[in-house]
C-alpha cells in the first residue's frame, strides 16, 4: 500500500515539476492552450454543418456527438497532460534513453510517462469539458460520472499508447507507426458507434479499443448506469495492467544505448 502511495506522490511531483516548467514559458503555454481550443472548435464545424441538414444519424443527434467528442478530447487532454511522455516512449526505447531511468529507484514506466507534459493537453481538456457542458445532455448530478468517464477514457488511451510505443522493444524504430495507430484509435473513437458493424465493431472493443475510449465512457456520461460504470472502470484497469505487463516484458529485451544523460 505504501509503495502505491509513494508512486502516486512521485507522479504528483513529476506533474508539479512539469507544470512549473510549462509555466516558465507562460506566453507559449497560453498560446498552445488557446490554439488547441480553437482547433477543436474548428474541427467540430463539420458536425455542426452536417447535423443542421441531417439531424439524426442512426439515432445519434448533435448533442450525443458533442458528448462523445467532449469525452474523447478531455480524455486525450488528461492523458497527455499527466503522462505526456507516452508519445515519446518509443523513441526513448529505440535510442536507449531508458538507461538513466533504469538506475533510479522509481518504476521505469511511471517515470518515463511523467517525463513530459503536453501543454496543448490543457486545451483539449478544457474544450472537452466545454463540449460536454454545451451539449446539455449531462446533468450536474451526473457530473461525477462524467469525470469518471473522462478518466476511464484517458486510461484506455494511455494503455494503448504504452502498448503501441512498447513495440519499439521488438521492432526498433516504431515512432511513426505508433503515432499513426494512436491517431487511428482516436479517429474511430470520434465517430458514432452505429457507423461500424461486423468484425470492425468487434475490433473496436478489443484490439483497437475505440469503443472503450469513446462510446462506453460517452454513454456513461450521457445515460449513467452502474453496469456501464463497472464496465468503464474494469476496462480501463484491464488495459492498463496489460500495457504495464507488455512494457515489463519488453524491458527485459531492452538493449542499453550506452548513452550518458541526465533527467531532472
Amino acid at each position: 500500500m505504501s509503495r502505491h502511495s509513494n508512486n502516486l506522490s512521485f507522479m504528483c511531483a513529476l506533474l508539479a515539476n512539469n507544470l512549473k516548467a510549462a509555466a516558465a514559458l507562460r506566453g507559449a503555454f497560453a498560446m498552445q492552450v488557446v490554439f488547441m481550443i480553437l482547433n477543436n472548435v474548428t474541427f467540430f464545424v463539420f458536425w455542426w454543418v452536417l447535423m443542421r441538414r441531417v439531424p439524426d444519424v442512426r439515432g445519434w443527434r448533435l448533442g450525443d456527438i458533442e458528448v462523445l467528442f467532449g469525452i474523447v478530447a478531455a480524455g486525450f487532454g488528461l492523458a497527455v497532460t499527466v503522462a505526456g511522455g507516452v508519445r515519446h516512449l518509443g523513441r526513448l526505447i529505440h535510442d536507449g534513453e531508458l538507461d538513466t531511468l533504469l538506475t533510479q529507484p522509481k518504476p521505469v514506466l511511471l517515470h518515463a510517462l511523467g517525463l513530459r507534459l503536453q501543454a496543448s493537453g490543457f486545451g483539449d481538456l478544457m474544450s472537452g469539458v466545454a463540449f460536454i457542458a454545451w451539449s446539455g445532455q449531462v446533468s450536474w448530478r451526473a457530473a461525477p460520472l462524467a469525470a469518471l468517464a473522462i478518466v476511464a477514457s484517458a486510461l484506455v488511451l494511455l494503455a494503448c499508447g504504452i502498448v503501441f510505443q512498447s513495440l519499439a522493444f521488438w521492432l526498433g524504430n516504431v515512432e511513426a507507426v505508433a503515432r499513426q495507430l494512436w491517431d487511428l484509435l482516436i479517429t474511430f473513437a470520434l465517430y458514432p458507434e452505429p457507423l461500424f458493424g461486423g468484425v470492425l465493431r468487434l475490433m473496436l472493443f478489443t484490439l483497437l479499443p475505440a469503443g472503450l475510449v469513446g462510446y462506453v465512457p460517452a454513454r456513461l456520461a450521457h445515460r449513467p448506469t452502474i453496469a456501464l460504470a463497472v464496465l468503464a472502470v474494469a476496462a480501463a484497469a484491464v488495459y492498463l495492467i496489460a500495457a504495464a505487463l507488455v512494457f515489463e516484458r519488453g524491458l527485459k529485451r531492452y538493449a542499453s544505448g550506452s548513452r550518458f544523460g541526465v533527467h531532472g
Partner: protein
Amino acid sequence: MFAAALKYVAFARVAAALARRDRGELFGRMVFFAVILGVFTSLWRAIADAGMPIAADAKQLVWYLATTEWIILSAPMVHMDLQESIRRGDVVCRLGRPASYVGSAFAEALGLLAVRAPLLAATAWICAAAFTGWIPPLASLGWTLPFGFAAAALITGMHLWIGLLAFWLEDVSPVFWIAQKLLFVFGGLMLPIDLYPTAMRTAAALTPFPTMLAGPASLVLPLNGSGSGLGMLTARLLAWGTVTAVAVWWEFRRARATLTINGG
C-alpha cells in the same frame, strides 16, 4: 537560369530518394487513408439512409473525400523540418550555400510530394472504387491528378510560410493547427462547400482554402469538369500560388534582416 534550376532539381531528387526508402511512413499513411475512407463510406451510407441533403450521392461524396484527403495527406509537413532547423541553428550553415534556403526547402518538399502523391492517389482510387463499387468518368478523374498535385504544392507553400514563423515564434504548431483546421473547414475537406450556410460559403470564397481542396476535388462531382470550371481553377491556383510565393519571399527577407548570428 537553367543551371540554377538544376540545383533545385537535385534537391528534389535527393528528397525523393530518401522518401522512397522511408517505406514504413508511407505505408502508415496509406493504411490511415484507407481507414478514413472506410469510416466516411459508413458515415455517408448512414446519411443516405437518413435522406441525403444535397444533389450528390453517397458514392460521389466518398470520391470527393478521397480526393481531398489525397491532397492533404500528400502535402509534406515541411514546417516541422524548418522549425527544427531554425531552432537548432542549422539554418545558419545553409544560408551560406549557393542555393536559396527557401527554394531548396520547397524543392525537397516537391521531391517528397512526387513520391507520395502517386502512391496515395492509387490508394485513394482503389479504396474509393472498392468501397463504393463505382468509378467517376475517367476524364474528370484524370483532371484531378494535375490539379490535385498543384493544390498539394500550394499547401506545401503555406506550410513553408508557417515554418518560417519559427524565426519569431518558439513553436509554430499552434499556427499550423489553426491553418490546418481552416483548410479543413473552408477548404471543404469532408463536405462540399455547397452544403455550408451562406455566410460560411462567402467567407470561404475570400480565402485560398477552397482552391487547395474543394476546387480539385469537385472535379469528381457532376457538372464540375467543364472547360470554364477548369480555366477558373487554373487561374485561382496561379493567383494564390503567386500570393503565397510573395508572402514567403517577404517573410524570409524580414527574417534574414532580423537574424543575429553569434559564434562559429
